[in-house]
């Protein structure tokens, strides 16, 4: 039987380093993905995720299982992400004003020729890429707190009470935060939403 997160953390507290390794394996991918969508830069996301694990390790001696482990973990991650987004905002605004509108750092280094070679059905590939890009951009454009709420709700499947604790707001404030986020997404993604409905 797999040990629960709380049990693993209590074992880490008791000095079992192997349990920390198991927590690392269990949460590195969700954490890196959450942070990547929050800060929109891969390397920074990985640095922050490392920082989360380090903080978990540092806090092991004082760990008391008062809340769900994931709530605690994502609260650390969310605080780091929100601070990072706020610290970088000025810098990023300068970058985005200078960058051509069509540039997308996330699209990687694939050059048009490489794409044509790798994907025989180029038109279909481009349509799918444009679609994914549109969805990513719609998420990226959400205000950071709404973005965090959507990511925790959609991808971590945490319940409203847990997400409210992570974002330090009431449950009803969280629900209206999520409602506004989904309203924005519904408008931003209108062309895709209309097709999806059919």
């Amino acid at each position, binding site marked *: 039987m797999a040990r629960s997160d709380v049990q693993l953390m209590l074992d880490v507290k008791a000095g079992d380093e192997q349990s920390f390794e198991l927590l690392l394996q269990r949460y590195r*991918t969700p954490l890196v993905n959450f942070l990547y969508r929050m800060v929109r830069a891969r390397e920074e996301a*990985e*640095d922050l995720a490392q920082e989360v*694990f380090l903080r978990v390790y540092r806090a092991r001696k004082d760990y008391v299982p008062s809340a769900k482990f994931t709530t605690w973990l994502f609260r650390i991650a969310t605080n780091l992400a929100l601070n990072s987004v706020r610290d970088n905002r000025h810098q990023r605004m300068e970058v985005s004003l200078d960058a051509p509108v069509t540039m997308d750092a996330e699209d990687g280094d694939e050059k048009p020729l490489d794409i044509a070679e790798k994907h025989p059905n180029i038109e279909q590939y481009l349509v799918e890429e444009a679609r*994914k890009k549109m969805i990513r951009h719609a998420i990226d454009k959400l205000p950071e707190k709404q973005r965090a709420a959507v990511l925790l*709700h959609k991808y971590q499947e945490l319940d409203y009470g847990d997400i409210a604790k992570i974002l330090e707001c009431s449950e009803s404030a969280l629900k209206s935060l999520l409602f506004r986020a989904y309203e924005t997404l*519904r408008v931003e993604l209108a062309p895709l939403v209309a097709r999806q*409905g059919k």
Partner: protein
Amino acid sequence: MSCSRMENKILAYVDGRLKESERLQVEKHLAACGACQLRVNEFRAVTSLLDEVPQIAPSAAFDVRVRARVAAEPVQQGWWAWFTPSPRVAFAASLLLLATVWIGYEQPQLSFENSKEADAQMMQEMQVLDDQDVISNFDPLKDLPQPVQPEDQTNQTGQPNQTM
């Protein structure tokens, strides 16, 4: 129920997270309100669009870096332990050294900016090593960039510090 009271319930309804009694209330409203029904359909479309966002995998060096940072953490012991050599610290230091050398090995494959960041990371880790005061005469460390001397004039001219 009014449309405005629906706002806090629509997403939970789409998720199937409502209590039975609330769900019935919502469905009663939906049966009579085209606008809210449309919103439900569109929120459903949005959640399935969000499923299309691809996941990324952490890089190969991720675990190594976490382990190195954890190994570099000071051991929590009584003050007297500070005077006696600790096998655990020595083990942690050698693990960290191994990881640092390994990360250093990876650098040629990284872009210039990446390697700058990896350098910063490495220097940060070395700083922690220095604090341990365990391996100050360790040979492999001699290959690392020397700290800038106080009499180094290049720093006075606003040149970026090469070791950073």
